[in-house]
């Protein structure tokens, strides 16, 4: 009897071990598949970095080399000297930071009114705010340009910043979040003589840090990467943003300096990638729940 149970147990153990082995092998195969796919997806980035370190002659070598024979760090220096990338960088930073701060402010204020106040015409106003998300930038492109032209704002920071200081989608997201904070908190604050604005500033905003951070992130990245509007509204080199600078840098000069172009593309990409790695978790989570909004 006992030997039977022992044999049984041994058999069971064996079965479990085999199952584990099969599972392990299966996971190993999937691991390799994912590795291969990830490598394929990263290939353009790898090729960008590799090319950015090659000498002009090696860039045109066939078959292409995967490790530069001689690391041509001077590509980065040359790229920086050939076009005013410092200026582009500054323009992009000024515009993206101003838009982020301004957009967040206007969104917080409007979302607070929608989430926490009762007023006449609230529903109509909310519909109006939501409807802005349906009007795409392509439709307003020509008239907005004509307005800027009349205001004499072409080639100015205002033109790059002001149109983006409101965001209907952001208002919606923040309103949803503000509504989850208990009403009792506000009543308690009110009893203690706290004004409505102070409640927003000292209680609601600190409590909503995660959503504010993700909204700020979207605003910043969307604006940093934006292309069409800066392309249209800036003519002078001194007002171009990084994305537009890159475009003219690449299309303007002959077609033989791919090493330098790739160095430039990498420099343009880097800030956003760094930010991504710093706040990866917030980023992925908020993207899953809110969706990315492109400009």
């Amino acid at each position, binding site marked *: 009897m006992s030997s039977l149970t022992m044999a049984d147990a041994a058999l069971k153990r064996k079965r479990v071990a085999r199952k584990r082995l099969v599972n392990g092998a299966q*996971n190993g195969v999937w691991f390799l598949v994912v590795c291969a796919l990830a490598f394929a997806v990263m290939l*353009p*980035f790898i090729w960008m970095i590799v090319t950015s370190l090659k000498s002009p002659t090696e860039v045109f070598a066939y078959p292409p080399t995967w490790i530069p024979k001689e690391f041509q760090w001077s590509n980065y220096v040359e790229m920086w000297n050939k076009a005013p990338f410092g200026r582009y960088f500054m323009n992009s930073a000024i515009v993206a930071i101003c838009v982020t701060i301004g957009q967040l402010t206007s969104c917080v204020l409007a979302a607070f009114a929608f989430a926490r106040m009762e007023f006449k015409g609230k529903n109509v106003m909310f519909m109006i705010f939501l409807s802005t998300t349906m*009007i795409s930038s392509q439709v307003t492109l*020509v*008239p907005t340009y004509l307005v800027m032209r009349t205001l004499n704002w072409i080639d100015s920071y205002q033109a790059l910043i002001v149109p983006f200081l*409101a965001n209907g989608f952001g208002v919606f997201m923040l309103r949803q979040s503000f509504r989850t904070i208990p009403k009792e908190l506000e009543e308690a604050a009110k009893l203690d003589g706290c004004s409505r604005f102070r409640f927003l500033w000292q209680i609601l905003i600190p409590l909503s840090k995660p959503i504010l951070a993700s909204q700020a992130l979207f605003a910043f990245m969307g604006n940093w990467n934006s*292309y069409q509007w800066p392309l249209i509204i800036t003519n002078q080199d001194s007002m171009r943003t990084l994305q537009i600078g890159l475009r003219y840098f690449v299309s303007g000069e002959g077609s033989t300096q791919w090493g330098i172009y790739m160095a430039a593309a990498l420099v*343009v990409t880097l800030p956003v990638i760094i930010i991504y790695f710093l706040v990866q978790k917030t980023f992925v989570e908020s*993207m899953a729940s809110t969706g990315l909004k492109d400009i």
Partner: protein
Amino acid sequence: MNLSMLKADKTVKQQVAPSAKKRKNKETFEAYLYLLPSLIIFTVFTFFPAFFSMVVSTFRWNLPGKAMFIGLENYIYLFTDAIEAPIFWQSLGNTFYFAVGVPINLIISLLLALLLNRKIRGVGVFRTAFFLPTITSTAAISVVWLWLFHPAQYGLFNSILISLGIPIQSWLRDPLLAMPCLIAMGIWSGMGYNIIIFLAGLQSIPSTYYEAAKIDGANTFSLFRFITWPLLGPTMFYVLTVGIINSLKAFTEIDVMTQGGPLNATNTTAYYLYQNAFQFFQMGKASAIAVLLFLLMLLLTWIQFRFVDRSVHYE
């Protein structure tokens, strides 16, 4: 004591009635103050331009000249003119051609999301790898792909073709291949976003469903077919419609890589609008295109709302 309290309460109530109204008015006033910054920006930069777009579309307005009212002539011209109409129709066709990438992207992203949903070691690293193209600026990745698609033999894709024994291609300079090239890049750069959305959707499906089905002897395929697929349906529909609407707006990659060429093969309606406005400076005609594009997007948004309402019924 009770009586006096009641009395006091009554007087308070009597006083409250008018002051409550006053307070309500005050609150309304304050609320609009909070809305004001957004309202000003929306009025000047969204509602007025949207309206003005329709007005301008009824004018012949070639900058720097003066505007002249011509009624619906811009629209008639776009649809019937012997030279203009074929290009406009081609641009509409190209727009939908470009949108073909969206369902392809959907399928690939879903497969990858299913793969990444397994318990694989270092899954975070892989997620980052798939996601990086999404956050990188379109201008920068377009420059990189311009180099990958280089028509000479040292272009990376051509060198791969050579090693496979296939003749080299001119990619973006070939009218037949240019659009598929743009679509391929679009899939590559858009995948990460879809994967994140799908992973969130997959993780929201209760694991008890799978466990119960497994006990009933369901295999991997039927688990997918009868649990994952229907429960992920609304998410997929959302991703599909948003993807199509976004693909109608595609501009950056076209401007950096092909400028609508070769032979208008990649000239989408959004790009054609830009060309008319900012290369030919025909503001009236460009506005007419903008209005038509807007109607198309509105139609898609309407479809999205209608069907999403209907299909979100689980749990």
